[in-house]
C-alpha cells in the first residue's frame, strides 16, 4: 500500500508544481502589482482609483449591462430549455445540437457580423427604410452591447438549465398533477425549485464573462462605450500602467469571489438535497 501511495505522490508532484507556478504565483503577482506603485512602495491608491469618476462609471455601466444581459439570457434560456426537453422526448437531439453548432464559428467573427446587421446601412435599417419607416440607431449603443453579450453567452445559460430540467424525475411531475396541481402550480412549486441549481450556475456562468468583457464593447460599441474590462485592458496594453491595471482587476476579483461563493453554496445545497433524497430512499 505504501508503495502505491508513494507513486501517487510522485504523480501529484508535477500538478502541485504547475498549480503553484502558473495559478498561485501569477495571481499573487496581480495582488503585488495592485498594491504597489511604480517604485515598488506599498499603496492602496490603485484600488482606491476605482472611485475616480471615469472608473466608477465604467464599473457601474458594466454591472448594469451584464445584469441586464444575464436577465435576458435567463428569460430566453428557460422556456427554450423546457421546449428542448419536451422535443427530446418525441424526436431526437437535433434541435439541441443546432443550438451548439454556432459556437464553432469564431466568436469574434460572429459578434463582428452584428455590425453589418445593426449599422446604419445595415440589414435591419435597409429593411426599415424600404418599407417606409424611420431607420433606428442600433449600433454603438448600450443595447447593442447587451445584445452582443446575450448572443455570446446564451449557451452558458442553456447548458446547465437544460441539464437539470432533463434530470427531473418525470414521476415527480406526474405525482403533482395527480394530486390536483394545475400547470402553473406544478411549475412554480415543483419544476422551478428543482431546477434552481442549474439556474444559479447558469447565472454565474453568464454574469462573470459579461461583467469583465472588453471584446463585445469594443466590437459593437464603436469606441463610445467604456466598460471596466476596457479600462483594464487599456491600462495594460495602451497606457502601460500595470499597477493601476492590477489594482482595478483586484476590484473585479472581489466580484468573482462573491460569485464563486454563491455558486459553491448552491452546490452544497444541491448535494444536501441529494443526500436527503437518498437517505429517504434508503
Amino acid at each position, binding site marked *: 500500500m505504501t508503495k*502505491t501511495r508513494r*507513486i*501517487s*505522490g510522485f*504523480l*501529484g508532484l508535477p*500538478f*502541485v508544481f*504547475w*498549480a503553484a507556478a*502558473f*495559478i*498561485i*504565483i*501569477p*495571481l499573487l*503577482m*496581480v495582488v503585488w*502589482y495592485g498594491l504597489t506603485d511604480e517604485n515598488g512602495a506599498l499603496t492602496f491608491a490603485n484600488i482606491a482609483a476605482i472611485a475616480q469618476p471615469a472608473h466608477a462609471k465604467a464599473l457601474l455601466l458594466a454591472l448594469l449591462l451584464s445584469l441586464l444581459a444575464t436577465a435576458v439570457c435567463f428569460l*430566453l434560456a428557460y422556456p427554450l430549455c423546457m*421546449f428542448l426537453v419536451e422535443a427530446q422526448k418525441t424526436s*431526437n*437531439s437535433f434541435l439541441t*445540437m*443546432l*443550438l451548439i*453548432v454556432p*459556437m*464553432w*464559428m*469564431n*466568436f*469574434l*467573427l*460572429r*459578434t*463582428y*457580423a*452584428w*455590425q*453589418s*446587421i445593426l449599422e446604419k*446601412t445595415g*440589414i435591419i435599417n435597409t429593411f426599415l427604410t424600404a418599407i417606409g419607416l424611420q431607420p433606428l440607431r442600433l449600433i454603438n449603443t448600450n443595447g447593442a452591447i447587451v445584445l452582443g453579450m446575450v*448572443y455570446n453567452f446564451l449557451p452558458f445559460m442553456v447548458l446547465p438549465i437544460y441539464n437539470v430540467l432533463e434530470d427531473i424525475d418525470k414521476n415527480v411531475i406526474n405525482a403533482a398533477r395527480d394530486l390536483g396541481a394545475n400547470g402553473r402550480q406544478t411549475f412554480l412549486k415543483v419544476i422551478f425549485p428543482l431546477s434552481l441549481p442549474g439556474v444559479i450556475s447558469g447565472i454565474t456562468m453568464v454574469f*462573470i*464573462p459579461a461583467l*469583465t468583457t*472588453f*471584446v463585445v464593447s469594443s*466590437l459593437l460599441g464603436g469606441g463610445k462605450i467604456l466598460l471596466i*474590462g476596457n479600462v*483594464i485592458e487599456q491600462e*495594460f496594453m495602451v497606457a502601460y500602467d*500595470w499597477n493601476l491595471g492590477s489594482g482595478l482587476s483586484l476590484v*473585479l*476579483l472581489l466580484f*468573482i469571489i462573491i*460569485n*464563486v461563493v454563491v455558486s459553491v453554496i448552491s452546490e452544497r445545497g444541491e448535494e444536501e438535497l441529494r443526500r436527503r433524497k437518498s437517505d429517504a430512499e434508503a
Partner: protein
Amino acid sequence: MALIFLFMYAPIALLIVQSFNKSKSRGRWGGFTFEWYGSLFSDESIIEAFTNTITLALLSSLIAVVLGTAACIFLTKLKKRTRSILMGVANVPMLNADIVTGISFMLLFITLRIEFGYSTILLAHITFNIPYVILNVMPSYRDLNPHIYEAALDLGASPAYAFFKTVLPEILPAILSGGLMAFTMSIDDFIITHFTAGAGVQTLSTKIYSEVKLGIKPEMYALSSMIFLAVLILLILVNRVQGSSRKAQEEEV
C-alpha cells in the same frame, strides 16, 4: 423558438454570404465569387494562424490530459480537507475572469523575463485546460472499484502495467471527453491569448481581432465558413448514425 434560432444563425448566414462577396468592402455586394476560397490557401498568414490555433489546442489539451489525470489519481488519495483545497486551486482558471487570468500570466512572464511567443501561449492554455480535464476524469476515477487494481498488483503486475490494464480502460471515455473539452476551450480562446502572445505569433482569434480595425479579409470569412460547414455536416452524420442505432436498439428491446 424560431426567433431564437434566427438570432443564433443570422450572423452566421451573413458571414457565409460575405465569403462569396466579390467586393472587399463589407458594406458592398460586388457579385458572387469563389475567389476567396482559392486565395485562402496561398495566404500564408491565415494558414499559419490556423495551424497555430490547431497545434496549440492539440498540444495544450494533450499535456493537460496527462497532468490532469495524474492529478486526479493523486487527489483521490489525499485527505478530504487537503483535497478540497487543492481542487479549489485547480479550478481557479475556470472560475476566474479571463481578463484577470490573462493579466496574471502577462505579469508572470514579464517578471521572469520570458519572451512572449508560442510557448507562453501554450503554458497559459495548458493551465486553463487542466480543470476541464479534472472535471471530467475525477468522477469517473472516483467511481472505480479499487480492488481490481489491487488484485492486479497482488497477482504480481507492476503498478504501471496494472494501471494501463485495469484503470485506464475504465476512465478512457472520461479522459477523451475531458481532452476534447479542453481542445474546444483552447480553440475558442481569445482573451488569454491576447495577453500572452508575442511577436509574429497569431492565432485565428488574435488575427481576427487585429483585422477588425482594418476590415476583415474575405479569406477569413471563407475559412470560417468552411470550418463551420464541415462541423455541421459531421454533426448531422453523427446524429443520423446515433439515431438509427438507437432505433435499432429500441426495436431489439
